[in-house]
């Protein structure tokens, strides 16, 4: 079960014609998929569309009634390849992943899918992880759409529009025989709103009504030469015009008219609300989307529709292109189209707006003011607009100065995380053997790149750590250490890293964090989880897989055993044995564990069973406020508080209530030879008579010995 349950919310997926759906963007997308009659769905989790997959999993029963097949894929490549079903069969399918990274992983299958094209609607819902809250490289998925002739929808972030674009996306795909991407930015995935629902539709052919005869052999369905040459022409000559015609006919793009006819704004659908709000604040629009500057809103981001564009621009002196990120693909295309048509409208874009970075409200206010200032339109006092923008944004400098230079608050390992002790061990190991090159990876363990560990020399992608150390190792005196999660191991690392390393008989040290879930994305199950969405364990295992691949030096260490981990790491670093040395750092994701254990303990407490609650603590008069323990932990539950000592000013360490008693504090105090301040308190709830008797006897004896006065 994933971190967040949508069991309650998925009930909304059953709504029928005319009923009002209320909920989050991704839930609306799921509803739209069911209304579109999909036959199969799949994907790989990653913010901001992790929850889309969680919703699909929680809605599996509802989907089963409609015969929809659900696949939680091993990675984005397998999700993209699923769409192959729509090449030969009239099956609608949708897959989802985080972009840009997921699209990179899926790229091979996407190219091979889009070349022959599809007959069943193929939709890819991508979470465009760009701007605030993003966790990946800042690149545009737009490039993939262009290079592979995949159409890209970028709907206005308004639930009815998003739902309509999902539905129209399938039709667009089928009418032009091309796959379609629908991109949702981070906030659009989580935006709440409402729309009027329709009945769900079952696919004509599906698990409930299976296809009798396989497709006939048709060489044209293969992305294989010599057909690939013909397919390239098909994309340009037939599919592109078909898509443009469909978009025109079904009015996928929207026009907002305005009285300042000399001006115009061409904006990507997803950025429309930001533009409209900025216009409203500058006195150029109201709160209902009535704008003075005409707007051409591209819900279909790729391809452009030259006729619509030309009709919008002709007669205008100045048009602003609002597209986030780099390169300015749309601005370039608009310039080309207008040049071809000999339309002399000036195009503003990157320049008025910044070349890179998110278009926040502040950026947009300034960008629009720059545009008006440069365009100098008749009927509008540009200086007033510029002054307004200045007035709305000018206070920031003084505000920031008043607060001072606030250090950022990056995410951190959770309280009790099993991965933190591994980095404590690594830090202690480095203290003895010297610094090592650390090849980091994607996953919760990448939080070790932040304080207090600040470890990791490179991150090359999900499951790529070992592969990215391949050329480091032979050039270094000391072995580099690669770190990979079990999520990354199954996603990519097993083949890209382990197989490649063994195949080349390379040396190296690999730590596999075995926590049992893809934890960073919300604890979804993966091949070596103890359970699956169907219940039973999938049955795959990291250790036996590595053995079968031929790894000889293999140790499994419980992550919380810091001293053992240090010893094992030193051994891996020092052994004369060449070849790959793998340490499986074993410890269940604490978030998942706590969710389970808390529920179990609550039941036990209720029925009167014995429960031991463990919590760590610090003796504040023994702590001298050096914080060595924090430098080896960084646990959110291990913090500081003012020293109770009237003579000391440095704050002392303190364990707060959220402590789950994972034991790391004690292990680190031992392994690192820290101070004697730490203690572990175990409270017995619902004690047995023996617990009580023992406790009573001990207290009596101790009270005879107890000093009369409190020590200093």
């Amino acid at each position, binding site marked *: 079960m994933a971190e967040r349950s949508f069991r309650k919310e998925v009930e909304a997926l059953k709504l029928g014609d005319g009923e009002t759906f209320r909920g989050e963007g991704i839930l609306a997308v799921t509803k739209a998929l069911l209304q579109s009659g999909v036959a199969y769905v799949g994907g790989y989790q990653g913010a901001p569309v992790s929850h889309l997959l969680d919703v699909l999993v929680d809605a599996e029963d509802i989907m089963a009634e409609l015969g929809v097949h659900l696949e939680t894929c091993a990675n984005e490549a397998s999700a993209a390849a699923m769409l192959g079903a729509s090449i030969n069969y009239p099956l609608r399918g949708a897959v989802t992943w985080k972009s840009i990274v997921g699209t990179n992983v899926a790229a091979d299958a996407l190219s091979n899918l889009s070349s022959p094209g599809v007959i069943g609607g193929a939709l890819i819902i991508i979470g465009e992880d760009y701007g605030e809250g993003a966790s990946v490289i800042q690149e545009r998925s737009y490039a993939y759409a262009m290079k592979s002739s995949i159409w890209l929808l970028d709907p206005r972030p308004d639930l009815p529009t998003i739902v309509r674009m999902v539905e129209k996306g399938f039709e667009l795909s089928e009418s032009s025989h091309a796959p379609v991407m629908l991109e949702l930015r*981070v906030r*659009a995935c989580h935006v709440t709103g409402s729309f009027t629902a329709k009945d769900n539709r079952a696919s004509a052919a599906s698990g409930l009504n299976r296809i009798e005869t396989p497709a006939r052999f048709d060489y044209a369905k293969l992305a294989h030469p010599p057909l690939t040459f013909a397919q390239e022409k098909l994309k340009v000559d037939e599919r592109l015009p078909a898509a443009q015609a469909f978009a025109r006919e079904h009015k996928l793009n929207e026009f907002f008219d305005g009285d300042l006819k000399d001006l115009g704004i061409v904006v990507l659908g997803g950025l429309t609300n930001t533009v409209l709000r900025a216009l409203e604040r500058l006195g150029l629009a109201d709160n209902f989307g009535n704008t003075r500057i005409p707007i051409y809103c591209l819900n279909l981001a790729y391809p452009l529709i030259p006729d619509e564009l030309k009709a919008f621009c002709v007669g205008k002196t100045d048009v602003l292109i609002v597209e986030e990120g780099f390169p300015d693909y749309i601005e370039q295309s608009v310039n080309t189209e207008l040049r071809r048509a000999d339309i002399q409208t000036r195009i503003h874009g990157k320049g008025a707006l910044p070349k890179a970075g998110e278009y926040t*409200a502040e950026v947009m206010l300034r960008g629009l003011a720059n545009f008006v200032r440069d365009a100098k339109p008749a009927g509008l006092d540009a200086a007033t607009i510029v002054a307004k923008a200045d007035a709305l944004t000018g206070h920031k400098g003084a505000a920031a100065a008043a607060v001072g230079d606030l250090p950022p608050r990056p995410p951190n390992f*959770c309280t009790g995380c099993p991965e933190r002790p591994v980095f404590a061990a690594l830090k202690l190991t480095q203290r003895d053997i010297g610094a090592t090159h650390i090849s980091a990876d994607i996953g919760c363990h990448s939080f070790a790149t*932040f304080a207090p560990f600040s470890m990791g020399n490179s991150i090359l992608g999900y499951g790529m750590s070992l592969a990215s150390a391949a050329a480091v190792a032979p050039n270094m005196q000391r072995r580099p250490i690669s770190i990979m999660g079990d999520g990354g191991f199954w996603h990519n690392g097993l083949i890209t890293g382990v197989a490649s390393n063994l195949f080349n008989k390379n040396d190296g040290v690999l730590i596999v964090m075995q926590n049992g879930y893809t934890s960073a994305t919300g604890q979804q199950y993966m091949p070596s989880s103890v359970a699956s969405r169907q219940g039973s364990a999938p049955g795959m295992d990291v250790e036996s897989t590595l053995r079968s691949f031929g790894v000889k030096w293999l140790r499994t260490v419980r992550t919380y055993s810091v001293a053992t981990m240090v010893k094992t790491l030193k051994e891996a670093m020092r052994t004369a044995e060449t070849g790959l040395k793998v340490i499986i750092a074993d410890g269940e994701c604490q978030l998942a564990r706590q969710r389970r254990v808390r529920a179990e303990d609550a039941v036990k407490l209720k029925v009167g069973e014995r429960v031991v609650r463990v919590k760590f603590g610090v003796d504040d008069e023994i702590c*001298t406020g050096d914080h060595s323990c924090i430098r080896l932990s960084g646990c959110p539950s291990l913090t500081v508080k003012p020293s109770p000592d*009237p003579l000391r000013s440095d704050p002392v360490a303190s364990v707060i209530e959220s402590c789950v008693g994972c034991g790391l504090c004690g292990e680190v105090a031992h392994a690192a030879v*820290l101070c004697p301040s730490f203690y572990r308190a175990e409270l017995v709830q619902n004690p047995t008579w023996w617990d009580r008797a023992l406790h009573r006897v001990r207290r009596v004896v101790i009270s005879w010995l107890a000093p009369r006065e409190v020590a*200093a």
Partner: protein
Amino acid sequence: MSDARPVTLLIAALGGEGGGVLTDWIVTAAESLGLPVQSTSIPGVAQRTGATTYYVEIFPVPYADLGGKRPVLSLAPGIGDVDMVVASELMEAGRAIANGFVTRDRTLLVSSTSRVYLTVEKMAMGDGRYDPERLAKAVEQSAKDHLLFDMEAAAKQSGAIVSAVMLGAIAGSGRLPVPVEAFEAAIRHDGKAVESNLSGFRAGLSAARDQLPAALRRSGKRPAKPTLANLEAEAAATPEAARAFVTEGVRRLAAYQDLPYARLYLDRLKPIAEADARSGMNGKLLSETARHLAVRMSFEDVIRVAEAKIAPARFCRIESEIAAKDQPYVITEFLKPGIEELCQVLPPRLARAILRVAEKRGWLGTVYFGMELKTTTVWGYLRFWTLAKLKRFRPKSFRFQEEQAVIVGWLALVSHSSRLSGELALEVAECARLIKGYGDTWKRGMANYRALEGRVISPALAGRIPLRVGIDAIASARTAALVDPDGESLTRALAAIEQQVAMPLAAE
């Protein structure tokens, strides 16, 4: 009607605090009134205790009165476009201010005064905490209205999550077009932990309505118990500026060892008091030296640790911490003494002999005796009890004699430097704070102190470093010593000082 604008609310929180639940309550409440409402968030990995925000817009006119029109709501907070900011933590309120979301013309800022420290604040070797006064002042300066109160304490008192308190504060502020009852209904509608959430809600509500002043923080200091000796009278006779520290020092050392030891403390302070008066420091030199001297003289040896571990007050404290109501509990202590720690309590000669052998055999820093002892069992308690009983012999122990030598040396430096300048003496006195802790920490601190003494203090006293430069150099080297445990900053700082001092000589 067309003049109506969306009311905007920015929630600044940390991942895992229930900001999502809070947002849902607000959306449910607004929806129940038929108001156009929209919320957005940026979960992702920010949920793992990182800074995150939630954003809500509510259009104050119900759909029913809009004639089919739909307002366009923004997905992200805009600079200068936020009516209310609610922060669960003071630094996150500061972050909202720094991002330009809090303005004097419209923003009500409600923030908790509590802090969840950043790792970089916590891991500093001394005090790395961000200045809370500065944050509170920025709140007062930047917002139109503000309300600061300890939401963490309010949540704890009411047994609720902090987001319930935040909802109460939002409801009580009256800034959203949603009445209090609608928010309450949203909590009930949600159906989870209704009673505790309602109690948290009411705590936030009354805080917002009563305009509570920021909760007074108890100092949390635990002074030592008074002694019955006339030493106290002597302490009380010291200059006003130093009196509190000297009194505390006397009490502490009397408890740490005995009355003669406290007497020694007062005697040691006499020359400092004279130096203070001579150099016109108005008690500042005496006060700081008195503070550090008491800490240095009550150094943390195994005897002191053992005593602290079996103090009856400690058991009471832990009982209340783990909320043990008559239930049995076990306390396990983590100790890992090395040979040096064991030698601390031996007579100097014996200790030195053992240490010589240990050093020869390479046992120092490698051989440790890891123990997990239970102070709640009779046998475990007895071991600490026995150790604590060694107190009597402490003055004859190796560690005691070593520490006294260092202390005497340090005091001599303070006295000596006071002849050059009171400020210099104060800087030298402050260097005592470098020596603290146990094991490696103590060793590192002592090594840093020695480095400072040898490379900055002594040259300054010998006149090889000009006075002004010397004062600054000691302060900057001391700060550098507390920056990183690997000593990189200190090495750089000392090199820079030596270069600075060498240059004018080279130029001559």
